[in-house]
């Protein structure tokens, strides 16, 4: 079942009065349960594409339909509510809220959604346990390592069971061990909870785990390869 559908999406920035086409006429569909990576060199437009899919930015033209809703037609406030209900984000720099503990950060979106405390508590504890941070739930981000913070960010994104998760260079600041741990966690959650993951990355370790690799060059999709599960699992 298709949950993301882009048709003729273009994003043009006007830098110093010179128009730059970061994304040019992209058509793309992503199905439920996919574990896909958008790859490409720096400046190819993969982060812009991810931002457009996540409703963080507006396309210059084209339509982006998420689960039947064309998010390009939504007003900024409606888009924020849409993101809250449908999309999980994992950012390169972890981006946890510094004044909240790991437990509170993980439950943050659920609390915004108004999930009942008991249900929230159960889900947060379960996820922190799954990402191996059950013993650090009362620590604030400043007391956690980069890898631990990114695991909390993944738990936060997964907690409200979003339609899909957008991860922009989630492993860029992590060492090899932390990267492997994080990718294993995400792959497991993708399987167990059928959560769709879409990465923007140029980390080959992520690409090797992906079951679909979308290559972006100069704002266009240059290739779109689907791997067999065994291929992805063994890189």
């Amino acid at each position, binding site marked *: 079942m298709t949950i993301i559908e882009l048709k003729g999406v273009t994003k043009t920035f006007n830098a110093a009065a010179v128009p730059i086409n970061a994304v040019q006429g992209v058509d793309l569909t992503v199905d439920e349960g996919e574990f896909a990576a958008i790859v490409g060199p720096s400046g190819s437009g993969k982060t812009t594409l991810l931002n457009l899919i996540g409703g*963080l930015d507006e396309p210059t033209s084209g339509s982006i339909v998420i689960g039947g809703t064309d998010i390009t037609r939504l007003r900024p406030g409606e888009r924020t509510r849409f993101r*809250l209900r449908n999309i999980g984000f994992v*950012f390169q720099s972890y*981006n946890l*809220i510094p004044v*909240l503990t790991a437990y509170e950060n993980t439950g*943050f*979106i659920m609390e915004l959604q108004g999930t009942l405390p008991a249900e929230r508590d159960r889900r947060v504890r379960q996820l922190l346990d799954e990402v191996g941070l059950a013993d650090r739930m009362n620590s604030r981000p400043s007391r956690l390592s980069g890898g631990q913070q990114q695991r909390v960010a993944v738990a936060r994104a997964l907690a409200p069971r979003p339609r899909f998760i957008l991860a922009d260079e989630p492993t860029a600041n992590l060492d090899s061990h932390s990267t492997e741990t994080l990718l294993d966690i995400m792959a497991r959650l993708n399987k167990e909870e059928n959560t769709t993951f879409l990465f923007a990355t140029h980390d080959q370790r992520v690409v090797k785990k992906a079951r679909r690799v979308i290559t972006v060059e100069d704002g266009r999709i240059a290739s779109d390869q689907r791997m067999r599960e065994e291929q992805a699992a063994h890189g």
Partner: protein
Amino acid sequence: MKLIFRMAWRNIWRNRRRTIITMLSIVLAIVLSIIMRSMQLGSYGKMINDVVGTYTGHIQVHQKGYWNDKTINSTFAASDSLIGMIESVAGVAFVVPRLESFALAAGAERSRGSFVVGIAPEKEHALSGLRKRVIKGDYLTTGDSGALVAGGLARFLKLGVGDTIVLLGQGYHGVSAAGAFRIKGIVHFASPELDRSFVYLDLATAQALFSAEQRLTSAVVEPRGRAATETIARMLRSLLDGRTFEVLTWREMLPELVQQIQGDNVGGIIMLAILYLVVAFGIFGTILMMTNERIREFGIVNAVGFSCGRLAVMAAVETAMLSLLSALAGSALALPVVLYFNLHPIRLTGEAAKAMINFGVEPVLPFLLDWRLFLVQILIVIAVTAVTMLYPFSLLGTLKPVSAMRR
């Protein structure tokens, strides 16, 4: 909302030193402004009480035109129904009748112009505490044929208790007024002007002296509380025939006192405005830093679904907590100071004291203890804070998560 409050509270303490410095500046401003305003308003209250309470009263009813041209001919018939009608107005505590005129007061050797007031002794005491001003002899009784003479006048005329004072003047409709009265008591006024001119007679005695039987120059109307003055005056104006009577409040009778208070008050308000302007810049500086250093964070939380509206509420709650806590702490610190000087007013000496005495005011500065004084300062801080909040509000109103996260 619970989440917003929790985050706001923790955000305040992210930079403890900055928060404490900002709070201290607000606390200091609140303490200074409360003490300053308490002293100012307390002294105004004292001035009003002294001047109004010594003689004028809060409201007076006269024959139309009397206040601008005080002659014995501008009297009105004091019928029981008229006095009863005035007393029946809601909020009126009591009515004090007076017959006032000028006369030459003379002793055996000297004479001087004096202000003669016919009074109902008990009501007059209830209004102005006149009995307490008696420093020698006794106070008047109803129907008394004696006189109370102000100390300065008695000294000038070289008269004492038991001596006779002669009053010579013009009575109602040109009839000559002359009488000799045994001095029953000497009264003292702080104001030299009053102390060298006042002579009190019983009302009936004064009416007989000025051939103005059953007539009054003024009916002093005392409200149950000062706040009701204007309302009662309005009601009296609607009740009494405006072509015959005038109803004046103390503000209208004593414009120079009102102007003095207003002038001083404006000075105080300007001082406060400067103080709060400094505080506003302090608060704004903190808000500016708290906002700018967190733009990226605002972008992140907005990206994950925390709306700009919620962010604005959180920013407002943070600032409100900061300013309210400071305002409450400042009020708590100022309270014992205000309380102490309310109970133990500052007693002035030297030239300042003389100036106040000349104005008919006791030279003390009592502090006003009124919850509204504290509330006003807290509201000012909230208002100042609300203005400084425009910056984060305008920034959050145009927040774009992608560009905010690039910071």
